[in-house]
């Protein structure tokens, strides 16, 4: 492998039902930072069926170039044709960096592609930068410059590891949704659009889709919320979440929850914050009756303002809270909700 042949920052622009997922814009945003550090460009790889019309939107969020792989076989996501599409792009265009969202699709696609093109893949990155590897010079080991340094939590969020992939290309990472910032949209921006079709011939690795069942939901995506009122086991029951819903409504926010609440069947999985749920960083995060397992904190500690209400003064959640109140949520929340409503009327 001649590493010098590999150039440019590529991002997989995930779309479902011909709607581009936010993660694509976030990856372009981060990709721009990396590309600027390397003096190169960002290319978005758009894979699907009848998706060419989406390319302009990728340009508006900063993509310099869009490679469109359009084929009827790519209509609904399936591992094999998508892996073939992305691996073929890698083999033809030789990117030095390839970023994929750590979504249910990306975490399936990424490993299959990295195994096919023989390179490393770092999962669920929360930070990406260009730097030296090894970070400090080591006797007897060449220090390589302009490497992608990929940082991710490990061991349930207890440890942070920074990973490099110095001898293989592309340097591949899946990136946690909600962590990287997208750039300001520039209406009317255009990118160089290139079509590429490596040919899709169904073989034994193509699975057959028998049915697609969409969850019917009118729930706001908690990753987009500015204010989250999040409840844990301490809330006590599904019915008692009414107190949190009232507070959320008064603040124009949304209710979310910890894993314990999903396990208890009080709330659905889409509302779960944490390592096995979603990473959120709202302006204000209320942690109500949440003790603060490490896995939970990994998903919310980047919030701007964290308010914790818990009756146990030793609860770990207080270690990340800006404002911690020891007390009974059943008594505090109704008063708090009324006061906020009153303050808003007065304000």
């Amino acid at each position, binding site marked *: 492998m001649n590493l010098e042949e590999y150039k440019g920052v590529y991002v997989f622009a995930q779309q*479902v039902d011909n709607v581009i997922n936010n993660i694509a814009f976030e990856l372009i945003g981060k990709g721009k930072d990396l590309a600027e550090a390397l003096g190169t460009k960002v290319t978005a790889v758009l894979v699907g069926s009848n998706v060419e019309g989406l390319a302009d939107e990728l340009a508006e969020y900063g993509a310099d170039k869009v490679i469109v792989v359009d084929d009827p076989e790519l209509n609904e996501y399936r*591992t094999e044709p998508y*892996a073939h599409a992305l691996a073929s792009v890698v083999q033809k265009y030789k990117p030095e960096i390839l970023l994929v969202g750590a*979504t*249910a699709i990306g975490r399936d696609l990424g*490993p*299959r592609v*990295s*195994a096919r093109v*023989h390179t*490393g*893949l*770092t*999962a669920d990155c929360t930070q990406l930068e260009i730097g030296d590897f*090894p970070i400090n010079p080591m006797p007897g080991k060449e220090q390589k410059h302009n490497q992608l340094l990929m940082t991710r939590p490990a*061991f*349930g969020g*207890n*440890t*942070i*590891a*920074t*990973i*490099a*992939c110095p*001898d293989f290309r592309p340097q591949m990472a899946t990136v946690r949704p909600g962590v990287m910032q997208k750039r300001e949209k520039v209406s009317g921006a255009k990118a160089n659009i290139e079509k590429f079709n490596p040919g899709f011939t169904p073989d*034994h*690795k193509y*699975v*057959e*889709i*028998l049915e697609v*069942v969409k*969850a019917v939901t009118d729930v706001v995506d908690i990753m987009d919320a500015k204010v989250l009122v999040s409840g844990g086991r301490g809330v006590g029951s599904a019915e008692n979440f009414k107190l949190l819903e009232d507070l959320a409504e008064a*603040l124009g926010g949304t209710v979310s929850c910890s894993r314990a609440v999903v396990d208890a069947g009080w709330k659905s999985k*889409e509302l779960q914050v944490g*390592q096995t749920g979603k990473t959120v960083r709202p302006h204000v995060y209320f942690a109500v009756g949440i003790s603060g397992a*490490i*896995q939970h*904190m990994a998903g919310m500690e980047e919030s701007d*303002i*964290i*308010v914790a*209400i818990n009756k146990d*003064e030793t609860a770990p959640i*207080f270690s*990340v*809270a*800006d*404002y*911690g*109140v*020891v*007390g009974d949520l059943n008594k*505090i929340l109704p*008063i*708090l909700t009324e006061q*906020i409503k009153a303050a*808003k009327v007065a*304000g």
Partner: protein
Amino acid sequence: MKIVVCIKQVPDTKGGVKFNPDGTLDRASMMTIMNPDDKAGLEAALRLKDQYGAEVTVVTMGLPKAEEVLREAIAMGADKGILVTDRVLGGADTWATSQTIAGALRNLEYDLIITGRQAIDGDTAQVGPQISEHLDIPVISYAQNLRVEGDSVIVERQFDDRYHVLRAKMPCLVTALAELNEPRYMTPGGIFDAYKAEITVWGRADLKDVDDSNLGLKGSPTQIAKASDKVRKGTGEQVTLDPSEAADYIVGKLKEKHVI
């Protein structure tokens, strides 16, 4: 039908995390468990065994101590255990790990390979799909339901806002979610069998069609640049107040920060 289940012994990070005085993870005092997603995968295999009379082989890669999870799996009802252990396999990233396990699986006959979606210590969810790539078979990850129909598996595959019902021809690899099922307990008879069971131990020489350049630390494309304990946001204020004072306090802070 022959089913191979890949399992991993992991530190029990759920609820039982212990720290050393310097703030690092105290691994020595932490319990080890069978990784939860893998256990659900094993349960799915055992249900197929109950239904269709399949033979279930469990495979793990790790230190000699990892034999414990194989015995646990046998006590639950698995037929055979294979431990892949060798010093030269240590320090493997997901590429080298998946190459190692694929090398072991090439010695076995299988219709279905089941792995957990991800291990709770690494959380990468990479090894299952990578094994399938090395073995050139289809993969269905994130299985929330699984059944066999003729020469195919039918799997409900979970996505964020939907699930797909997929059919794949066997041989096929499926990665299981812990939500897939409620794993059974070990039975007294099973525990007795597990103690007597002969565990097959394989080393580097037993791996089929794998080059040394793809194994262990040296065969790992990814390398650790640095590892550190997570630096957490410092503790802010903590107050104990009666309910209406508590509400005043929070409202005051929200006003101060221009939230309301």
